Protein backbone atom coordinates (compact mmCIF):
# COMPACT_ATOMS: atom_id res chain seq x y z
CA UNK A 1 0.00 0.00 0.00
CA UNK A 2 1.24 3.47 -0.78
CA UNK A 3 2.56 5.33 2.19
CA UNK A 4 3.56 8.85 3.10
CA UNK A 5 6.21 9.19 5.76
CA UNK A 6 7.57 12.53 6.88
CA UNK A 7 9.61 13.95 9.72
CA UNK A 8 10.21 17.63 10.18
CA UNK A 9 11.61 19.83 12.85
CA UNK A 10 11.66 23.56 12.27
CA UNK A 11 11.96 26.42 14.71
CA UNK A 12 10.61 29.88 14.16
CA UNK A 13 11.01 32.77 16.57
CA UNK A 14 7.61 32.14 18.12
CA UNK A 15 6.89 28.61 17.11
CA UNK A 16 8.34 25.12 17.03
CA UNK A 17 7.17 22.37 14.71
CA UNK A 18 8.20 18.79 15.39
CA UNK A 19 6.18 16.40 13.36
CA UNK A 20 6.42 12.74 12.63
CA UNK A 21 3.89 11.48 10.17
CA UNK A 22 3.14 8.08 8.66
CA UNK A 23 -0.18 7.74 6.90
CA UNK A 24 -1.52 5.67 4.03
CA UNK A 25 -1.22 7.83 0.94
CA UNK A 26 -4.72 7.45 -0.40
CA UNK A 27 -7.92 9.36 -0.29
CA UNK A 28 -8.21 12.66 1.50
CA UNK A 29 -5.95 13.01 4.50
CA UNK A 30 -7.14 15.90 6.62
CA UNK A 31 -4.79 17.82 8.88
CA UNK A 32 -6.87 19.40 11.59
CA UNK A 33 -6.00 21.70 14.43
CA UNK A 34 -6.62 25.18 15.80
CA UNK A 35 -5.12 28.25 14.12
CA UNK A 36 -1.43 28.52 14.77
CA UNK A 37 -0.89 24.83 15.48
CA UNK A 38 1.45 24.49 12.50
CA UNK A 39 -0.88 23.05 9.87
CA UNK A 40 0.24 25.35 7.10
CA UNK A 41 3.89 25.07 8.09
CA UNK A 42 3.62 21.29 7.91
CA UNK A 43 2.20 21.59 4.42
CA UNK A 44 4.97 23.98 3.36
CA UNK A 45 7.53 21.50 4.70
CA UNK A 46 5.91 18.66 2.77
CA UNK A 47 6.03 20.71 -0.42
CA UNK A 48 9.59 21.86 0.15
CA UNK A 49 8.62 25.52 0.48
CA UNK A 50 10.24 25.40 3.91
CA UNK A 51 13.33 23.34 4.47
CA UNK A 52 13.85 21.83 7.87
CA UNK A 53 17.51 21.16 8.61
CA UNK A 54 16.68 17.75 9.99
CA UNK A 55 13.87 16.15 8.12
CA UNK A 56 12.69 13.57 5.69
CA UNK A 57 9.81 13.17 3.32
CA UNK A 58 9.14 9.94 1.47
CA UNK A 59 6.13 9.21 -0.70
CA UNK A 60 5.98 5.57 -1.75
CA UNK A 61 9.52 5.01 -3.00
CA UNK A 62 10.22 8.64 -3.88
CA UNK A 63 12.64 10.26 -1.48
CA UNK A 64 12.03 13.98 -1.73
CA UNK A 65 13.94 14.92 1.35
CA UNK A 66 16.40 13.07 3.55
CA UNK A 67 18.65 15.51 5.31
CA UNK A 68 20.71 12.76 6.91
CA UNK A 69 21.92 11.98 3.39
CA UNK A 70 21.82 15.55 2.19
CA UNK A 71 18.89 14.93 -0.13
CA UNK A 72 16.51 17.79 -0.82
CA UNK A 73 14.65 17.71 -4.12
CA UNK A 74 13.73 21.28 -5.05
CA UNK A 75 10.07 22.09 -5.13
CA UNK A 76 9.94 22.54 -8.89
CA UNK A 77 11.14 18.98 -9.41
CA UNK A 78 8.70 17.36 -6.99
CA UNK A 79 5.54 15.91 -8.33
CA UNK A 80 3.38 17.87 -5.92
CA UNK A 81 0.33 19.97 -6.57
CA UNK A 82 -0.33 22.83 -4.17
CA UNK A 83 -3.56 24.72 -3.69
CA UNK A 84 -3.09 27.75 -1.47
CA UNK A 85 -5.57 29.58 0.72
CA UNK A 86 -5.84 32.26 -1.94
CA UNK A 87 -6.11 31.11 -5.56
CA UNK A 88 -2.81 32.78 -6.58
CA UNK A 89 -3.71 32.71 -10.25
CA UNK A 90 -1.34 34.61 -12.52
CA UNK A 91 -3.11 37.88 -13.30
CA UNK A 92 -1.38 38.38 -16.64
CA UNK A 93 -2.58 35.04 -18.00
CA UNK A 94 -6.11 34.02 -18.85
CA UNK A 95 -7.66 30.93 -17.32
CA UNK A 96 -6.52 28.67 -20.14
CA UNK A 97 -2.93 29.91 -19.90
CA UNK A 98 -3.03 29.53 -16.13
CA UNK A 99 -4.16 25.94 -16.52
CA UNK A 100 -1.45 25.32 -19.11
CA UNK A 101 1.32 26.79 -16.98
CA UNK A 102 2.04 23.68 -14.97
CA UNK A 103 0.90 21.27 -17.68
CA UNK A 104 3.55 22.60 -20.08
CA UNK A 105 6.20 22.06 -17.43
CA UNK A 106 5.23 18.47 -16.78
CA UNK A 107 7.04 15.86 -18.84
CA UNK A 108 4.85 14.09 -21.36
CA UNK A 109 5.47 10.68 -19.86
CA UNK A 110 4.04 11.68 -16.48
CA UNK A 111 1.01 13.57 -17.75
CA UNK A 112 -2.00 11.42 -17.08
CA UNK A 113 -4.57 14.10 -16.32
CA UNK A 114 -5.93 15.91 -19.34
CA UNK A 115 -7.28 19.39 -19.76
CA UNK A 116 -10.62 17.96 -20.85
CA UNK A 117 -10.92 15.91 -17.67
CA UNK A 118 -10.11 18.86 -15.43
CA UNK A 119 -12.45 21.18 -17.29
CA UNK A 120 -15.20 18.60 -17.00
CA UNK A 121 -14.75 17.72 -13.33
CA UNK A 122 -14.35 21.33 -12.18
CA UNK A 123 -16.91 22.72 -14.61
CA UNK A 124 -14.74 25.59 -15.86
CA UNK A 125 -15.32 25.34 -19.61
CA UNK A 126 -16.95 28.73 -19.91
CA UNK A 127 -14.21 30.47 -17.92
CA UNK A 128 -11.30 29.49 -20.19
CA UNK A 129 -10.88 32.75 -22.06
CA UNK A 130 -11.45 35.03 -19.11
CA UNK A 131 -8.90 36.77 -16.94
CA UNK A 132 -8.62 35.68 -13.29
CA UNK A 133 -9.67 39.12 -12.01
CA UNK A 134 -13.07 38.74 -13.64
CA UNK A 135 -13.88 35.48 -11.83
CA UNK A 136 -15.59 35.03 -8.49
CA UNK A 137 -13.55 33.73 -5.58
CA UNK A 138 -15.04 30.27 -5.92
CA UNK A 139 -14.36 30.14 -9.66
CA UNK A 140 -10.78 31.29 -9.12
CA UNK A 141 -10.21 28.57 -6.55
CA UNK A 142 -11.61 25.95 -8.92
CA UNK A 143 -9.19 27.10 -11.61
CA UNK A 144 -6.35 26.99 -9.07
CA UNK A 145 -7.29 23.40 -8.23
CA UNK A 146 -7.37 22.55 -11.93
CA UNK A 147 -4.01 24.21 -12.51
CA UNK A 148 -2.45 22.11 -9.75
CA UNK A 149 -4.08 18.90 -11.03
CA UNK A 150 -2.76 19.42 -14.54
CA UNK A 151 0.79 18.78 -13.34
CA UNK A 152 -0.48 15.22 -12.72
CA UNK A 153 0.95 15.30 -9.21
CA UNK A 154 1.55 12.26 -7.06
CA UNK A 155 0.35 14.23 -4.07
CA UNK A 156 -1.99 17.18 -3.86
CA UNK A 157 -1.59 19.58 -0.95
CA UNK A 158 -4.49 21.87 -0.11
CA UNK A 159 -4.06 24.60 2.45
CA UNK A 160 -7.50 25.66 3.68
CA UNK A 161 -8.63 26.14 0.08
CA UNK A 162 -12.10 27.21 1.17
CA UNK A 163 -11.24 29.53 4.01
CA UNK A 164 -11.41 32.69 1.93
CA UNK A 165 -14.85 31.83 0.59
CA UNK A 166 -18.29 32.44 2.02
CA UNK A 167 -20.55 29.56 3.00
CA UNK A 168 -22.35 29.57 -0.32
CA UNK A 169 -19.12 29.22 -2.30
CA UNK A 170 -17.83 26.57 0.08
CA UNK A 171 -20.85 24.44 -0.61
CA UNK A 172 -20.28 25.02 -4.29
CA UNK A 173 -16.71 23.70 -4.17
CA UNK A 174 -16.90 20.88 -1.61
CA UNK A 175 -18.48 18.41 -4.04
CA UNK A 176 -15.70 19.14 -6.55
CA UNK A 177 -13.05 18.35 -3.98
CA UNK A 178 -14.86 15.19 -3.00
CA UNK A 179 -14.82 14.13 -6.65
CA UNK A 180 -11.06 14.67 -7.01
CA UNK A 181 -10.30 11.57 -5.00
CA UNK A 182 -12.61 9.30 -6.97
CA UNK A 183 -11.79 10.79 -10.39
CA UNK A 184 -8.05 11.21 -10.25
CA UNK A 185 -6.88 8.85 -7.49
CA UNK A 186 -4.36 11.32 -6.17
CA UNK A 187 -3.80 11.34 -2.42
CA UNK A 188 -4.75 14.73 -1.03
CA UNK A 189 -3.50 16.33 2.13
CA UNK A 190 -6.18 18.75 3.15
CA UNK A 191 -5.47 21.30 5.85
CA UNK A 192 -8.43 22.86 7.59
CA UNK A 193 -9.66 24.16 10.89
CA UNK A 194 -13.25 23.54 9.84
CA UNK A 195 -14.52 20.24 11.21
CA UNK A 196 -17.50 20.19 8.88
CA UNK A 197 -15.22 20.17 5.86
CA UNK A 198 -13.12 17.41 7.35
CA UNK A 199 -16.06 15.22 8.29
CA UNK A 200 -17.40 15.71 4.81
CA UNK A 201 -14.17 14.88 2.99
CA UNK A 202 -11.58 13.00 4.95
CA UNK A 203 -10.72 9.36 5.02
CA UNK A 204 -7.75 9.78 7.31
CA UNK A 205 -7.23 12.54 9.82
CA UNK A 206 -4.12 13.93 11.48
CA UNK A 207 -4.65 16.01 14.59
CA UNK A 208 -2.08 18.69 15.20
CA UNK A 209 -1.57 20.66 18.38
CA UNK A 210 1.16 23.17 19.16
CA UNK A 211 3.37 21.84 16.42
CA UNK A 212 3.11 18.14 17.13
CA UNK A 213 0.91 15.32 15.90
CA UNK A 214 -1.34 14.23 18.74
CA UNK A 215 -3.41 11.69 16.88
CA UNK A 216 -3.85 10.20 13.47
CA UNK A 217 -5.72 7.40 11.78
CA UNK A 218 -8.95 6.61 9.97
CA UNK A 219 -11.36 9.43 10.70
CA UNK A 220 -14.04 7.21 12.28
CA UNK A 221 -11.49 5.84 14.73
CA UNK A 222 -9.98 9.19 15.61
CA UNK A 223 -13.37 10.76 16.20
CA UNK A 224 -14.40 8.00 18.57
CA UNK A 225 -11.18 7.98 20.56
CA UNK A 226 -11.92 9.14 24.08
CA UNK A 227 -8.41 10.33 24.86
CA UNK A 228 -8.51 12.78 21.95
CA UNK A 229 -11.71 14.42 23.05
CA UNK A 230 -9.91 17.46 24.46
CA UNK A 231 -8.69 18.27 20.95
CA UNK A 232 -12.14 18.44 19.47
CA UNK A 233 -14.39 21.35 20.35
CA UNK A 234 -17.15 20.25 22.74
CA UNK A 235 -20.00 20.88 20.34
CA UNK A 236 -18.25 18.83 17.63
CA UNK A 237 -17.52 15.76 19.72
CA UNK A 238 -19.25 12.76 18.26
CA UNK A 239 -18.71 9.58 16.33
CA UNK A 240 -18.93 9.47 12.55
CA UNK A 241 -21.08 6.85 10.94
CA UNK A 242 -20.90 5.93 7.26
CA UNK A 243 -24.37 5.14 6.00
CA UNK A 244 -26.23 4.53 2.79
CA UNK A 245 -29.69 5.86 2.04
CA UNK A 246 -32.03 2.87 2.46
CA UNK A 247 -35.55 4.20 2.26
CA UNK A 248 -37.55 7.40 1.81
CA UNK A 249 -40.57 7.63 4.07
CA UNK A 250 -42.76 10.15 2.26
CA UNK A 251 -45.62 9.87 4.71
CA UNK A 252 -43.65 11.07 7.73
CA UNK A 253 -40.98 13.01 5.87
CA UNK A 254 -38.14 10.82 7.02
CA UNK A 255 -35.14 9.20 5.42
CA UNK A 256 -33.91 5.82 6.63
CA UNK A 257 -30.18 5.32 6.61
CA UNK A 258 -28.56 1.90 6.83
CA UNK A 259 -25.23 1.42 8.59
CA UNK A 260 -23.21 -1.51 9.89
CA UNK A 261 -25.23 -1.67 13.13
CA UNK A 262 -28.74 -1.21 11.82
CA UNK A 263 -30.76 1.82 10.77
CA UNK A 264 -31.02 5.49 11.61
CA UNK A 265 -33.98 7.73 10.92
CA UNK A 266 -33.30 11.31 9.94
CA UNK A 267 -35.43 14.14 8.61
CA UNK A 268 -36.00 13.81 4.87
CA UNK A 269 -32.83 14.05 2.76
CA UNK A 270 -33.08 14.77 -0.95
CA UNK A 271 -30.88 11.81 -1.81
CA UNK A 272 -31.04 8.77 -4.03
CA UNK A 273 -31.53 5.33 -2.53
CA UNK A 274 -28.12 3.73 -2.20
CA UNK A 275 -26.26 7.04 -1.99
CA UNK A 276 -23.51 7.14 0.60
CA UNK A 277 -23.80 9.63 3.42
CA UNK A 278 -21.44 10.22 6.32
CA UNK A 279 -23.24 11.49 9.39
CA UNK A 280 -22.02 12.61 12.75
CA UNK A 281 -23.81 11.64 15.93
CA UNK A 282 -22.85 14.20 18.51
CA UNK A 283 -22.05 12.77 21.93
CA UNK A 284 -24.38 15.25 23.59
CA UNK A 285 -27.30 13.89 21.56
CA UNK A 286 -26.86 10.34 22.77
CA UNK A 287 -28.33 9.05 26.01
CA UNK A 288 -27.95 5.62 27.57
CA UNK A 289 -30.68 3.36 28.91
CA UNK A 290 -29.58 0.36 30.96
CA UNK A 291 -32.31 -1.96 29.64
CA UNK A 292 -34.95 -1.97 26.94
CA UNK A 293 -37.43 0.70 28.03
CA UNK A 294 -40.89 -0.68 28.74
CA UNK A 295 -42.40 2.75 28.17
CA UNK A 296 -42.89 4.48 24.83
CA UNK A 297 -40.26 6.99 23.76
CA UNK A 298 -40.52 9.77 21.22
CA UNK A 299 -36.96 9.10 20.20
CA UNK A 300 -36.92 7.21 16.92
CA UNK A 301 -33.40 5.95 17.02
CA UNK A 302 -33.02 3.40 19.75
CA UNK A 303 -30.14 1.00 19.25
CA UNK A 304 -28.67 -1.92 21.12
CA UNK A 305 -25.21 -1.09 22.35
CA UNK A 306 -22.30 -2.42 24.33
CA UNK A 307 -20.23 -0.24 26.64
CA UNK A 308 -16.64 -0.24 25.41
CA UNK A 309 -14.89 2.33 27.51
CA UNK A 310 -15.60 4.91 30.18
CA UNK A 311 -13.90 8.24 29.62
CA UNK A 312 -11.63 9.91 32.10
CA UNK A 313 -13.49 11.25 35.10
CA UNK A 314 -12.78 14.83 35.98
CA UNK A 315 -14.03 15.82 39.42
CA UNK A 316 -14.42 19.44 38.34
CA UNK A 317 -16.60 18.46 35.40
CA UNK A 318 -20.11 17.03 35.79
CA UNK A 319 -20.00 15.12 32.52
CA UNK A 320 -18.21 12.03 31.29
CA UNK A 321 -17.87 10.49 27.83
CA UNK A 322 -18.80 6.88 27.20
CA UNK A 323 -17.71 4.92 24.16
CA UNK A 324 -20.29 2.44 22.93
CA UNK A 325 -20.38 -0.14 20.21
CA UNK A 326 -23.49 -0.16 18.04
CA UNK A 327 -21.88 -2.06 15.20
CA UNK A 328 -19.58 0.89 14.90
CA UNK A 329 -18.23 3.20 17.59
CA UNK A 330 -20.59 5.72 19.19
CA UNK A 331 -19.82 8.37 21.80
CA UNK A 332 -22.23 9.51 24.47
CA UNK A 333 -21.91 12.33 26.97
CA UNK A 334 -23.72 11.62 30.24
CA UNK A 335 -23.48 13.06 33.73
CA UNK A 336 -21.24 11.48 36.33
CA UNK A 337 -24.35 11.06 38.44
CA UNK A 338 -25.96 8.91 35.71
CA UNK A 339 -22.78 6.92 35.39
CA UNK A 340 -23.04 5.98 39.06
CA UNK A 341 -26.79 5.38 38.92
CA UNK A 342 -26.53 3.07 35.90
CA UNK A 343 -23.35 1.47 37.23
CA UNK A 344 -21.94 1.36 33.72
CA UNK A 345 -18.92 -0.84 33.10
CA UNK A 346 -17.18 -2.08 29.94
CA UNK A 347 -18.93 -5.05 28.35
CA UNK A 348 -22.34 -4.06 29.67
CA UNK A 349 -25.28 -4.36 27.29
CA UNK A 350 -27.33 -1.17 27.12
CA UNK A 351 -29.49 0.81 24.70
CA UNK A 352 -28.47 4.05 23.10
CA UNK A 353 -31.05 6.70 22.36
CA UNK A 354 -30.07 9.10 19.62
CA UNK A 355 -31.98 12.34 19.77
CA UNK A 356 -30.66 13.80 16.56
CA UNK A 357 -28.30 12.90 13.80
CA UNK A 358 -26.14 15.73 12.62
CA UNK A 359 -25.84 15.53 8.90
CA UNK A 360 -22.89 16.80 6.99
CA UNK A 361 -22.88 20.53 6.28
CA UNK A 362 -23.78 20.22 2.65
CA UNK A 363 -27.25 18.99 3.48
CA UNK A 364 -28.01 21.58 6.14
CA UNK A 365 -30.48 24.00 4.70
Amino acid at each position, binding site marked *: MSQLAANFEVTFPTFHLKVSLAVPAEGIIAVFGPSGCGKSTLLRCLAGLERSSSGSMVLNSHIWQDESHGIFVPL*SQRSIGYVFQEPRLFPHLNVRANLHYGWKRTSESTRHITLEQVIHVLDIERLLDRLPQSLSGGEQQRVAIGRALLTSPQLLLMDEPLSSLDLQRKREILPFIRRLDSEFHIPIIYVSHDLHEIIELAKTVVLLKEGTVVGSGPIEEVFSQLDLRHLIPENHLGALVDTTVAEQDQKFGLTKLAFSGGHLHVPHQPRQIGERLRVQILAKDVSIISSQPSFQTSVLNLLEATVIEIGKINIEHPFVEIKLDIGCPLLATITRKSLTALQLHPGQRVHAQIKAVALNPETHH
Partner: protein
Amino acid sequence: MVDLDLGPLWLTLQLASATVIVLLLVGTPIAWWLAFTSSRLRTIVEAIVALPIVLPPTVLGFYLLIAFGPHGLIGGPWKDLTGSALSFTFTGLVLASTFYSLPFVVQPLHGAFEAVGKKPLEAAWTLGASKLDTFFTVASPMAIRGYLTAIVLGFAHTLGEFGVVLMVGGNIPGHTKVLSIAIYDHVETLEYAQAHMLSAGLLLFSFIVLLAVYSANRRLPLHVT
Protein backbone atom coordinates in the same frame (compact mmCIF):
# COMPACT_ATOMS: atom_id res chain seq x y z
CA MET B 1 19.71 78.94 -41.56
CA VAL B 2 21.55 78.34 -38.36
CA ASP B 3 24.43 75.94 -38.53
CA LEU B 4 23.55 73.24 -36.01
CA ASP B 5 25.72 70.30 -35.09
CA LEU B 6 23.43 67.38 -34.31
CA GLY B 7 26.31 65.18 -33.13
CA PRO B 8 25.64 65.85 -29.42
CA LEU B 9 22.01 64.82 -29.88
CA TRP B 10 22.89 61.39 -31.30
CA LEU B 11 25.58 60.93 -28.71
CA THR B 12 23.11 61.72 -25.96
CA LEU B 13 20.57 59.25 -27.28
CA GLN B 14 23.27 56.61 -27.56
CA LEU B 15 24.43 57.30 -24.04
CA ALA B 16 20.93 57.18 -22.57
CA SER B 17 20.08 53.96 -24.41
CA ALA B 18 23.31 52.23 -23.44
CA THR B 19 22.92 53.37 -19.85
CA VAL B 20 19.36 52.07 -19.62
CA ILE B 21 20.40 48.68 -20.98
CA VAL B 22 23.26 48.40 -18.49
CA LEU B 23 20.98 49.63 -15.70
CA LEU B 24 18.33 47.02 -16.42
CA LEU B 25 20.94 44.29 -16.31
CA VAL B 26 22.51 45.61 -13.11
CA GLY B 27 19.40 47.04 -11.49
CA THR B 28 17.16 43.99 -11.84
CA PRO B 29 19.18 41.69 -9.56
CA ILE B 30 19.72 44.50 -7.05
CA ALA B 31 16.01 45.35 -6.99
CA TRP B 32 15.11 41.65 -6.75
CA TRP B 33 17.49 41.17 -3.85
CA LEU B 34 16.12 44.26 -2.09
CA ALA B 35 12.55 43.07 -2.55
CA PHE B 36 13.01 39.56 -1.23
CA THR B 37 16.00 39.46 1.10
CA SER B 38 15.71 39.36 4.83
CA SER B 39 19.37 40.28 5.22
CA ARG B 40 20.35 43.11 7.52
CA LEU B 41 22.48 44.56 4.74
CA ARG B 42 19.31 45.51 2.94
CA THR B 43 18.99 48.95 4.55
CA ILE B 44 22.63 49.76 3.83
CA VAL B 45 22.32 48.75 0.18
CA GLU B 46 19.08 50.73 -0.10
CA ALA B 47 20.84 53.82 1.25
CA ILE B 48 23.81 53.40 -1.11
CA VAL B 49 21.52 52.98 -4.11
CA ALA B 50 19.63 56.16 -3.16
CA LEU B 51 22.77 58.26 -2.69
CA PRO B 52 22.83 59.75 -6.23
CA ILE B 53 19.44 61.31 -5.55
CA VAL B 54 20.77 63.51 -2.76
CA LEU B 55 24.40 63.99 -3.79
CA PRO B 56 25.30 67.00 -5.96
CA PRO B 57 26.28 65.54 -9.34
CA THR B 58 29.64 67.25 -9.04
CA VAL B 59 30.43 65.27 -5.89
CA LEU B 60 29.60 62.00 -7.58
CA GLY B 61 31.44 63.18 -10.69
CA PHE B 62 34.49 64.13 -8.65
CA TYR B 63 34.81 60.71 -7.02
CA LEU B 64 34.11 58.92 -10.27
CA LEU B 65 36.76 61.02 -12.00
CA ILE B 66 39.29 59.87 -9.43
CA ALA B 67 38.12 56.26 -9.58
CA PHE B 68 38.18 56.25 -13.40
CA GLY B 69 41.72 57.66 -13.60
CA PRO B 70 44.48 55.45 -15.01
CA HIS B 71 45.54 54.66 -11.44
CA GLY B 72 42.07 54.77 -9.93
CA LEU B 73 40.06 52.02 -8.29
CA ILE B 74 38.12 51.26 -11.47
CA GLY B 75 40.22 52.94 -14.15
CA GLY B 76 43.39 51.03 -13.19
CA PRO B 77 42.04 47.51 -13.61
CA TRP B 78 40.10 48.70 -16.67
CA LYS B 79 43.29 49.90 -18.31
CA ASP B 80 45.06 46.64 -17.50
CA LEU B 81 42.17 44.72 -18.94
CA THR B 82 41.38 46.69 -22.10
CA GLY B 83 44.47 48.79 -22.64
CA SER B 84 42.49 52.02 -22.80
CA ALA B 85 41.58 54.63 -20.24
CA LEU B 86 38.12 55.11 -18.80
CA SER B 87 38.00 58.79 -18.07
CA PHE B 88 37.02 61.12 -20.91
CA THR B 89 35.62 58.22 -22.98
CA PHE B 90 32.11 57.19 -23.99
CA THR B 91 32.42 53.95 -22.00
CA GLY B 92 33.38 55.98 -18.96
CA LEU B 93 30.29 58.11 -19.47
CA VAL B 94 28.04 55.05 -19.65
CA LEU B 95 29.56 53.73 -16.46
CA ALA B 96 29.23 57.08 -14.68
CA SER B 97 25.64 57.46 -15.86
CA THR B 98 24.90 53.99 -14.54
CA PHE B 99 25.89 55.06 -11.06
CA TYR B 100 24.13 58.37 -11.44
CA SER B 101 20.80 56.96 -12.63
CA LEU B 102 20.86 53.75 -10.58
CA PRO B 103 18.16 54.75 -8.06
CA PHE B 104 15.79 55.78 -10.84
CA VAL B 105 15.81 52.23 -12.17
CA VAL B 106 16.26 50.22 -8.99
CA GLN B 107 13.52 51.93 -7.00
CA PRO B 108 10.61 51.37 -9.42
CA LEU B 109 11.72 47.78 -9.96
CA HIS B 110 12.10 47.21 -6.24
CA GLY B 111 8.57 48.50 -5.69
CA ALA B 112 7.20 46.42 -8.55
CA PHE B 113 8.83 43.21 -7.33
CA GLU B 114 7.57 43.86 -3.82
CA ALA B 115 4.08 44.32 -5.21
CA VAL B 116 4.35 40.99 -7.02
CA GLY B 117 5.35 39.40 -3.73
CA LYS B 118 6.39 35.89 -2.97
CA LYS B 119 3.01 34.25 -3.40
CA PRO B 120 2.79 34.00 -7.20
CA LEU B 121 6.41 32.88 -7.28
CA GLU B 122 5.70 30.03 -4.86
CA ALA B 123 2.71 29.08 -6.97
CA ALA B 124 4.92 28.94 -10.07
CA TRP B 125 7.51 26.79 -8.29
CA THR B 126 4.84 24.31 -7.25
CA LEU B 127 3.83 24.14 -10.91
CA GLY B 128 7.30 23.01 -11.88
CA ALA B 129 8.88 26.31 -12.89
CA SER B 130 12.52 26.90 -11.96
CA LYS B 131 13.47 30.19 -10.33
CA LEU B 132 14.74 31.69 -13.58
CA ASP B 133 11.68 30.43 -15.45
CA THR B 134 9.49 31.98 -12.76
CA PHE B 135 11.31 35.28 -13.09
CA PHE B 136 10.72 35.51 -16.82
CA THR B 137 7.22 34.06 -17.01
CA VAL B 138 5.62 35.35 -13.81
CA ALA B 139 7.58 38.05 -12.01
CA SER B 140 8.62 40.13 -15.04
CA PRO B 141 5.24 40.21 -16.76
CA MET B 142 3.61 41.10 -13.46
CA ALA B 143 6.19 43.86 -12.91
CA ILE B 144 5.87 45.21 -16.45
CA ARG B 145 4.74 48.66 -15.34
CA GLY B 146 7.64 48.89 -12.96
CA TYR B 147 9.94 48.14 -15.89
CA LEU B 148 8.34 50.79 -18.03
CA THR B 149 8.72 53.40 -15.30
CA ALA B 150 12.31 52.32 -14.70
CA ILE B 151 13.21 52.58 -18.38
CA VAL B 152 11.66 56.01 -18.78
CA LEU B 153 13.10 57.47 -15.59
CA GLY B 154 16.53 55.98 -16.27
CA PHE B 155 16.53 57.26 -19.83
CA ALA B 156 15.24 60.71 -18.97
CA HIS B 157 17.54 61.15 -16.03
CA THR B 158 20.57 60.22 -18.14
CA LEU B 159 19.37 62.58 -20.87
CA GLY B 160 19.39 65.47 -18.46
CA GLU B 161 22.65 64.88 -16.65
CA PHE B 162 25.26 67.59 -16.75
CA GLY B 163 27.50 67.73 -13.73
CA VAL B 164 28.68 64.15 -13.78
CA VAL B 165 29.27 64.20 -17.53
CA LEU B 166 31.26 67.37 -17.32
CA MET B 167 33.47 65.98 -14.56
CA VAL B 168 34.02 62.49 -15.97
CA GLY B 169 33.64 63.02 -19.68
CA GLY B 170 35.04 66.41 -20.29
CA ASN B 171 33.79 67.98 -23.46
CA ILE B 172 35.17 66.02 -26.40
CA PRO B 173 33.08 66.37 -29.55
CA GLY B 174 31.90 63.03 -30.85
CA HIS B 175 32.98 61.21 -27.71
CA THR B 176 31.67 62.88 -24.63
CA LYS B 177 30.04 66.11 -25.74
CA VAL B 178 26.43 65.41 -24.95
CA LEU B 179 23.41 67.61 -25.48
CA SER B 180 23.30 69.34 -22.13
CA ILE B 181 26.94 70.32 -22.46
CA ALA B 182 26.48 71.45 -26.05
CA ILE B 183 23.68 73.72 -24.93
CA TYR B 184 25.87 75.11 -22.18
CA ASP B 185 28.62 75.73 -24.74
CA HIS B 186 26.25 77.54 -27.07
CA VAL B 187 25.04 79.76 -24.27
CA GLU B 188 28.62 80.49 -23.18
CA THR B 189 29.48 81.60 -26.70
CA LEU B 190 26.22 83.56 -27.00
CA GLU B 191 24.89 81.32 -29.79
CA TYR B 192 21.37 81.61 -28.46
CA ALA B 193 19.73 80.38 -31.67
CA GLN B 194 21.51 77.04 -31.47
CA ALA B 195 20.91 76.83 -27.74
CA HIS B 196 17.22 77.45 -28.35
CA MET B 197 16.92 74.77 -30.97
CA LEU B 198 18.64 72.12 -28.91
CA SER B 199 16.81 73.09 -25.73
CA ALA B 200 13.42 73.21 -27.39
CA GLY B 201 14.18 69.91 -29.12
CA LEU B 202 15.09 68.25 -25.84
CA LEU B 203 12.05 69.72 -24.14
CA LEU B 204 9.70 68.51 -26.85
CA PHE B 205 11.32 65.11 -27.05
CA SER B 206 11.13 64.60 -23.28
CA PHE B 207 7.53 65.67 -23.19
CA ILE B 208 6.50 63.37 -26.04
CA VAL B 209 8.30 60.38 -24.52
CA LEU B 210 6.69 60.94 -21.12
CA LEU B 211 3.30 61.46 -22.69
CA ALA B 212 3.59 58.28 -24.71
CA VAL B 213 4.73 56.30 -21.71
CA TYR B 214 2.05 57.53 -19.36
CA SER B 215 -0.72 56.88 -21.81
CA ALA B 216 0.72 53.47 -22.64
CA ASN B 217 1.04 52.71 -18.95
CA ARG B 218 -2.58 53.53 -18.40
CA ARG B 219 -3.79 51.41 -21.27
CA LEU B 220 -1.16 48.71 -20.90
CA PRO B 221 -3.01 45.45 -20.68
CA LEU B 222 -1.62 43.35 -17.91
CA HIS B 223 -2.73 40.49 -20.06
CA VAL B 224 0.12 38.99 -22.09
CA THR B 225 -0.05 35.53 -23.49
